[in-house]
């Protein structure tokens, strides 16, 4: 069944790289929410979410990032989106989120963002 796969890699420099692969919808968003919350609970607030393999996102999926970015920022971190596919980017556009979320095109850019 089409689903969501998440990988999660904390790095030495304090950043955590996540990747989301598959479908982030009203069925799977809790998986992403729990992953991010567990990182927050451990004090990891600098997150880079790789979206190059995410085929689909709906408002429930975008909502996870909407809920998380403020928490990250309030704790000296941020939530950076890396390489969204055109389909996913379009949903962020429709919701007016492309002005709000830092969106970068490479891991190096993401690292530089947290500089």
């Amino acid at each position, binding site marked *: 069944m089409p689903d969501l796969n998440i990988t999660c890699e904390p790095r030495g420099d304090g950043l955590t790289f996540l990747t989301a692969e598959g*479908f982030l*919808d009203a069925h799977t968003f809790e998986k992403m929410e729990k992953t991010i919350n567990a990182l927050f609970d451990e004090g990891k607030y600098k997150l880079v979410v790789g979206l190059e393999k995410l085929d689909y996102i*709906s*408002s*429930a999926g975008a909502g996870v990032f*909407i*809920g998380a970015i*403020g928490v990250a920022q309030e704790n000296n971190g941020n939530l950076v989106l890396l390489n969204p596919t055109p389909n996913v980017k379009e949903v962020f556009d429709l919701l*007016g*989120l492309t002005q709000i979320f830092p969106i970068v095109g490479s891991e190096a850019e993401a690292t530089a963002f947290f500089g």
Partner: protein
Amino acid sequence: MGAAIHREICVTNETENLHKVREFVSAAVQDSAVPREEQNKVILAVDEAVANVMEHAYEGTLGGSIRVRIESDERRFEVLIRDHGRRFDPGRIVDPDIEAHVRAGRKNGLGVFLMRQIMDKVDYDFRDEAENRLTLVKFLGADR
């Protein structure tokens, strides 16, 4: 492409069925006159509407039925979504202030807004005291 389409799918209200609905709509938009660059958005609008029924209409009980019917010709792509859950008129939902949403960390409340952004008509009707009917229409061709 662009021929008349009449299709229907019926699913129960488990969110794991959302992907079936998306595949059903995806096949239909591809056979329709909906322009390529609009197809993903139409799939999204239907996904949002059906996800709402799954999450809200049956108030926690599973096995509730949802029918999605698609009618399309060169002038419109029309989706009728029917359920027997609680009455709900999306017309009551106020458009969200996205920046306020983000500042407040609010995660939900964007589905109806997206539907309205994408589709040309979002009509709700309660039929025979027993059926919620939500109609989403995208006008095509000269009617756009």
